[in-house]
């Protein structure tokens, strides 16, 4: 088998694949992720991360951005961002 698991690092450039849709749902008044046979409801932190996954910014840059925005320790934010994106990559919601 030649396929391997995607590993998220500081240098990864995460993005949502075309078939994953992040949008605001007017009925439920919350952000949702539409995925194959799944609807995910991201919390505030996941949403903040996903909105920065534009296919240009690296994980490192996203962490810098969020650490500044929330006035939080960069190391901790970096770890949280990497872990969350790794989890989403494992579920097929994020590519890099």
């Amino acid at each position, binding site marked *: 088998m030649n*396929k391997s698991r995607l590993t998220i690092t500081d240098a990864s450039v995460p993005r949502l694949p075309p*078939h994953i849709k992040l949008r605001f*749902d007017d009925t439920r008044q919350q952000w949702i992720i539409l995925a*194959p*046979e799944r609807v995910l409801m991201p919390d505030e932190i996941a949403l903040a991360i996903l909105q920065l996954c534009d296919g240009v910014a690296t994980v490192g840059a996203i962490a810098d951005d969020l650490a500044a925005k929330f006035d939080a320790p960069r190391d901790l934010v970096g770890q949280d961002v990497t872990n969350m994106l790794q989890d989403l990559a*494992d579920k097929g919601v994020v590519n890099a």
Partner: protein
Amino acid sequence: MTRPAAAMALLAELTHRCPLQCPYCSNPLELERAAAELDTATWCRVFSEAAEMGVLQVHFSGGEPTARKDLRELVRHAADVGLYSNLITSAVLLDRDRIAALAAAGLNHVQISIQDSEAPGADRIGGYAGGHDKKLAVARLVREAGLPLTLNAVVHRQNLQNLEAMIALAVELDARRLEVAHVQYYGWALANRASMLPTRDQLEQATKVVQAARERLKGILTIDYVVPDYYAHKPKACMGGWGRQFLNVSPSGKVLPCHAAESIKDLRFDSVTERPLRDIWENSEAFRRFRGTDWMPEPCRSCDQRELDWGGCRCQALALAGNAALTDPACGLSPHHADLLALAERESASPPPAFRYRRIGATAAV
């Protein structure tokens, strides 16, 4: 009574026509004829109404949804009104051009069923010569068209020995998801239960195979596992609870809380041709009958699981305990649970009878 939350997904059973004859089909024994099917404009109106009431996803299903000549128009309309679309197909009627047309119309995802890991077994179970090879070819075309693919392996006592090979096939076909779905015993599957229900040992072995594959294939293949609850202690939250997340529209337009609900003969199901979809979801007798917890008898009524499993499955309560308003016998607290277990052990240990293949018109009593 407060207004129920909006449905998440609509299962659109576009037709009951299907070239395959899988004996595990969960369609009702009384299949609807082509002449009774909703027309294109009515389906489009249903999708508009669904999006308007907050439904997020549409699953095109059947029968075989690609048997509808207007599938591309339906996909396009669903995309236009903002529904995320999923095609649940046997794949045997698809080719490169049709897949390209569906992708261009806005289809988001394709799920292809397989009946076994190799052609001889798969074609015997599906009752369709050449089906398996066609499915593999179409699965590759789906990926070439850039559409995400889920493989759905329906498993039972006559193919569980090939589960590892079915998982390997999903990886080889570049599916990102695999559903390992033990047969659920409704409709035709219920009529074929004695030839399909696994033994407890087979079930436990399959569960181990799935657990190991999930570890090994983390980040490569997501495996969803649907277990048969005849050996369970807790019932499944069928459909996430009656009238809570899903609605199903039959080929002729009847709106059902689940695809098997018509087995409950004393419920009346409204049609999209008579009443707005939202009104049916919120107010119809059939949806209100088992929604929430007010309908529950003991032991459900006082159970701390009642808002987790919602009393299990109503159709299963009817089929196995004789009354849709009872606790699902899959629950260890049901007075019918011991009978169910004994039945499962007896049937799964006996030689399997011949399949009763799913055919329109083949509805003689079992």
